[in-house]
């Protein structure tokens, strides 16, 4: 059957939205279906995100707006899947579009109907903490911003119809069934959180001051029911002592909850505790946990900060009962400390860190799409490709396949898009329409007519800055013909307002005073472009990140500063001019650095899409880190997978493999790189062009100096042990083996978790135990981090008789050789001393970055490293495989320690992100670049020395003689040349000297 160049994405949370954006950008038609009435999913409900404490709404909102306005994405809300037929490449999907009773084309989202509605319903977005009208929108910044009538609550009184000036309320709108033809399907329905049953142990539902973590998230949120104040539901007081109980409904083998670990709760609990304390300093959080599973990039550092900077108290215990004081509504918690003492402690509020369940409609979806679910009712996935369901052509991303956090979800979202790219690459650009923009309004020579939009950003600005005063001030400035305020200037409705105002007031410069241009400038530029203004006729005044948030207790000064910043922006705006973006060709070839599993998967997927690929490996052989791994914890045969992959890569016509290679140089820029490598035993030089770069250079095992490794033959590393059990029967004669976890991880030198060592140790321990049941195995750990479904194997290991003993970082085990034996001295956290006589000690060594390699490559590519010398992605949450430098991507262990499956996901994700570039014939370059005025240039050539991009050369001009000129395709617009030019001949568009002088001068 003929393949179709369209894709169905089910679920429009952050995962589904990312998949849709990737595929839309790569030239596919995307049908994005959402079951609720707006997109954004759970992330839109969150206050902040870990580990950076980024405001969730701030970072997700631009993405949602982009999704909502993307030319190739057809977004439908309130949908239900009815029937799916067909096969990979050509599916037919019948979809029920449930009516909103509001005409989406007419609704302006003004909200008059919601305010007039006499019915109050429970607000599910605010987790039942507040009330909502039957005619409502999910949250103020919702995309699409369309009100909908909830028929379950609506009494059909007709009031809203009466008040709607747009005549958008249409009670007779009917459900609609549509049939979609798509080539691939991505499922991203997310999760539902665990809801404690009636009569639960924790008194949830009975005691008012016991809330779930997602309810608490809304309590924390500035746009939540309590407007960012942390209050007790029982009496509205600020609680001082707040207890967080972890693993509610997770790691629960009693049948009340789920047996697996929900992966994200340890971190979100720490985050909620930190943010609660940050919001209200009197709050002293206590977290009751089993293990602290901070296994992701920079997670451990966050936990340490929570404890040291925010005074979060951790108690390792599961509470045994909660009772409410009927008078004060305080909660009395009873728990046993590690040393066996029973303690009763009073708390003013209790937060239940509830786990992640499969979505409620998982079975329905599985049935409709014909995919299998796993034992926990999550989507069953391929053992090595976590986004591949049991049906070809149907992919999954995010929490529907296993509980996971936002960056992993976003990675998988791109990974699923990557797989779709591979499946449907020949059908790109077959079903899409070009975005039609109105012609640009000619503004040159006209007097500036400036419009200033000042954002309240909820309370983020409005709470600390007198916004109305700033608006009044802006109005008084010369050339400002309009100044206005908005609650959220970034929301979809405000974009419409801005466009309307541009028209109404004939604006030819637009200023938004809100957050940072680093995240929001493109959004507003797009908006003014849609209104017919050149993108560059836009300015931002950063009055949030660099004003309201940093002067929270200085209302007057912050207001004054905001006014100054607005005036400076106005002064600049008066001088800005429209700019052209030049178009650049794209070389549809790729460079993949690193020939491990990650690099090979990426290379193979590029090659399968007919993109010629250059794969560079520094070793003699392909395979990388995985060569030391025999199986995965879940039983996947790594060696078989690896040799198959190597075979495919080596024989693929589109892949050029360079082994024993060293990169000499990488020149160029997005779409147009030119690189050279020396490779092979002869160090042959090869030169090639390519459009993108994927960094998949991996990492290495930590080489221990501690625990007598290197001096005692019976002390080996986990990977050496894995080799022993997989290739010999040697352990049969070992009576007792001790494994030590966190060797070279989570310490001062390497303050991060290596993520896979716990699983590795348990995997090898189980294999060893099966081989030699009489061998005793003891695992010494700090926290067992068998997150997600790996928890099952932890339990299995315990059931097999493997002994787990905990130690503290301050009291590491000691090894004393005694003859052929090794005596291991352990001091437990209760200060009990345990002596074990073992035959062998296995060190679970961590993963460390290849410092020198990474630094060198980082310099070649102009990409940064983090403190631990792993590569630093563009954004920890939402751009996990992108670098800030366009056209360069990162995947696998080079990014941070992770499992093979996660590395493969990242490889696919990098492919998808790269396809958004490679799929195009040309891309638009930045317009803010340098230009030299030949009339002023003296041709001294100093700028040539200053340019790091070799973008300047001297030419002979017919009129001016020897002058320098800038190659606008190579220029990045840094301005180093301009700052040094002796004749002031060089200026930088968008940051011209005239504009900056205007900002400096005219101070009141």
């Amino acid at each position, binding site marked *: 059957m003929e393949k179709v160049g369209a894709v169905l994405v089910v679920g429009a949370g952050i995962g589904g939205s990312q998949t849709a954006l990737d595929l839309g950008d790569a030239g596919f038609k995307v049908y994005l279906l959402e079951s609720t009435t707006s997109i954004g999913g759970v992330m839109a409900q969150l206050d902040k995100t870990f580990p950076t404490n980024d405001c969730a709404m701030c970072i997700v909102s631009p993405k949602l707006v982009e999704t909502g306005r993307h030319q190739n994405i057809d977004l439908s809300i309130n949908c239900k899947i009815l029937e799916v037929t067909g096969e990979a490449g050509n599916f037919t999907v019948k979809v029920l579009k449930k009516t909103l009773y509001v005409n989406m084309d007419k609704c302006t989202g003004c909200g008059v109907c919601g305010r*007039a509605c*006499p*019915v*109050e319903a429970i607000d599910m977005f605010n987790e039942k*903490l*507040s*009330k909502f009208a039957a005619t409502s929108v999910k949250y103020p910044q919702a995309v699409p911003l369309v009100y909908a009538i909830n*028929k379950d609550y609506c*009494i*059909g*009184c*007709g*009031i809203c*119809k009466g008040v709607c000036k747009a005549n958008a309320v249409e*009670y007779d709108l009917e459900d609609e069934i549509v049939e979609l033809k798509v080539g691939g399907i991505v499922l991203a329905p997310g999760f539902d959180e665990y809801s404690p049953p009636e009569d639960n142990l924790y008194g949830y539902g009975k005691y*008012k001051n016991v809330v779930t973590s997602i309810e608490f998230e809304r309590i924390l949120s500035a746009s939540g*029911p*309590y*407007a960012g*104040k942390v*209050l007790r*539901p*029982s*009496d*509205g*007081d*600020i*609680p*001082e002592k707040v207890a967080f109980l972890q693993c509610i409904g997770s790691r629960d083998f009693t049948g009340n909850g789920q047996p697996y670990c929900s992966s994200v709760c340890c971190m979100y609990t720490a985050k909620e505790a930190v943010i609660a304390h940050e919001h209200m300093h*009197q709050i002293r959080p206590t977290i009751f946990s089993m293990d602290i599973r901070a296994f992701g990039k920079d997670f451990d550092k966050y936990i340490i900060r929570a404890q040291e900077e925010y005074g979060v108290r951790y108690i390792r215990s599961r509470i045994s009962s909660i009772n409410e004081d009927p008078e004060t509504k305080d909660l009395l918690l009873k728990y046993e400390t590690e040393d066996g003492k029973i303690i009763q402690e009073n708390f003013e509020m209790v937060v239940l860190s509830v786990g992640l369940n499969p979505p409620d409609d998982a079975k329905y979806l599985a049935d409709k799409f014909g995919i299998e679910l796993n034992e926990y009712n999550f989507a069953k996935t391929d053992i090595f490709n976590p986004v591949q369901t049991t049906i070809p052509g149907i992919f999954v991303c995010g929490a529907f396949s296993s509980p996971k956090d936002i960056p992993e979800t976003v990675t998988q979202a791109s990974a699923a898009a990557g797989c779709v790219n591979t499946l449907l690459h020949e059908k790109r650009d077959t079903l899409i329409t070009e975005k039609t923009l109105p012609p640009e309004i000619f503004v040159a020579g006209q007097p500036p007519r400036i419009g200033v939009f000042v954002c309240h950003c909820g309370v983020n600005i409005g709470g600390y800055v007198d916004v109305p005063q700033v608006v009044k001030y802006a109005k008084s400035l010369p050339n400002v013909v309009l100044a206005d305020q908005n609650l959220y200037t970034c929301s979809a409705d405000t974009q419409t307002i801005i466009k309307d105002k541009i028209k109404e007031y004939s604006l030819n410069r637009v200023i938004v005073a809100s957050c940072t241009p680093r995240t929001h400038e493109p959004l507003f530029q797009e908006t003014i472009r849609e209104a017919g203004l050149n993108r560059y006729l836009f300015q931002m005044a950063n009055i949030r990140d660099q004003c309201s948030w940093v002067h929270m207790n200085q209302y007057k000064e912050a207001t004054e500063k905001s006014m100054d910043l607005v005036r400076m922006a106005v002064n600049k705006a008066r001088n800005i001019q429209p700019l052209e973006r030049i178009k650049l060709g794209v070389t549809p070839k790729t460079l993949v650095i690193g020939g491990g599993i990650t690099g090979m998967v990426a290379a193979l997927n590029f090659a399968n899409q007919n993109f010629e690929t250059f794969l560079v490996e520094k070793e003699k052989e392909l395979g990388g880190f995985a060569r030391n791994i025999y199986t995965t914890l879940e039983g996947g045969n790594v060696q078989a997978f690896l040799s198959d992959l190597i075979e495919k890569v080596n024989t693929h016509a589109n892949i050029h493999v360079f082994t024993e290679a060293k990169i000499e140089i990488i020149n160029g820029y997005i779409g147009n790189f030119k690189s050279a490598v020396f490779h092979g035993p002869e160090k042959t030089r090869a030169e090639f062009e390519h459009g993108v770069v994927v960094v998949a250079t991996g990492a290495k095992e930590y080489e221990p100096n501690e625990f007598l490794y290197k001096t005692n033959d019976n002390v080996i590393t986990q990977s050496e042990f894995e080799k022993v059990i997989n290739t010999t029967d040697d352990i049969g004669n070992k009576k007792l083996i001790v494994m030590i976890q966190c060797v070279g991880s989570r310490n001062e030198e390497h303050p991060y978790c290596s993520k896979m060592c716990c699983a590795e140790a348990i995997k090898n321990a189980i294999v060893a135990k099966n081989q030699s049941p009489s061998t005793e195995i003891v695992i010494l750990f700090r926290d067992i981090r068998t997150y997600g479904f790996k928890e099952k194997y932890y339990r299995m290991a315990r059931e097999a008789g493997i002994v787990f003993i905990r130690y503290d970082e301050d009291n590491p085990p000691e090894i004393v050789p005694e003859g052929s034996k090794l005596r291991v001295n352990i001091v437990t956290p209760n200060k009990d001393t345990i002596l074990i006589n073992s035959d062998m000690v296995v060190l679970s060594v961590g993963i460390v970055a290849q410092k020198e390699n990474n630094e060198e490559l980082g310099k070649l590519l102009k990409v940064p490293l983090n403190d631990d010398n792993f590569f630093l992605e563009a954004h920890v949450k939402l751009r996990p495989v992108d670098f800030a430098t366009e056209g360069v991507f990162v995947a696998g262990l080079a990014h941070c320690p992770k499992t093979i499956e996660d590395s493969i996901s990242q490889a696919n994700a990098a492919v998808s992100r790269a396809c958004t570039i490679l799929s195009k014939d040309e891309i638009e370059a930045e317009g803010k670049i340098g230009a030299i005025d030949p009339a002023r240039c003296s041709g001294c050539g100093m700028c040539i020395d200053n340019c790091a991009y070799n973008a300047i050369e001297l030419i002979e001009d017919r009129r001016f003689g020897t002058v320098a000129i800038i190659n606008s395709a190579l220029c990045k617009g840094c301005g180093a040349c301009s700052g040094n030019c002796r004749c002031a001949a060089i200026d930088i568009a968008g940051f011209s000297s005239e504009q900056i002088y205007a900002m400096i001068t005219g101070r009141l």
Partner: protein
Amino acid sequence: MTFEPKILGFLCNWCSYAGADLAGVSRIQYPPNMRVIRVMCSGRVDPVFIFKALLTGIDGVFVLGCHPGDCHYLEGNYEAEKKFIMVQKFLKIVDFDKRIRLDWVSASEGARFAQVVTEFIESIREQGPSPLSGENIDQELFNNLKAMENSVSSDRIRALVGRQRRITEVENEYGEKVPIDEYNAIFDGAIHDEFVRQRILLSLSTKVLSVKDLAAELKLDPSEILENMLTLKSRGDIDYQSIDGNTPLYMRI
């Protein structure tokens, strides 16, 4: 001195007022305690009128209209009944609902007019003077009734009562009839909530208070007060004023 109730009567022009006239023409005697306000239809009796009257210290309010089906304006008396029931529901909260009455008297029922008026006067006489009359009025009751007056002025309550007949008896916008039980559940909830909210606003209009202060004043659970305060806050009626220790204080805007 014996108690002589003061009663206000709203009489519709076409039936009850004519009935009262007939009682006069026929010289039928009845107690002199009622003062009459003529309205064109009982449907004209705005719930606010009743509360305004009660707040002045009037001992009872009587609304009289045409018999069902006889309305000069076709259905005005049906609307009157819905509004009256709503007022009763409010007054029931403070056990004050027996001080108002609705009845039907036609233009030909002079005797019946005298009879129902006499009965109502007697009923009020038994209940005694209104706690809102005289020198020392019951301030709490006054506040409660004032809050109710504000509630019945609100869009929400007026929308619900105004559309009741159409959506429960004829058909709503979807061409369906809303079951009366379902409607009443929503209506009763709305009456209770709006009353509490108006009561909160009244208290906050003179002083700054916490959730717990208000709970004590209104003799309600603090969590319920909090919930209603959130709605008022989102409507922009109140805001945080300051924090006293760990207790946020609220003010009216």
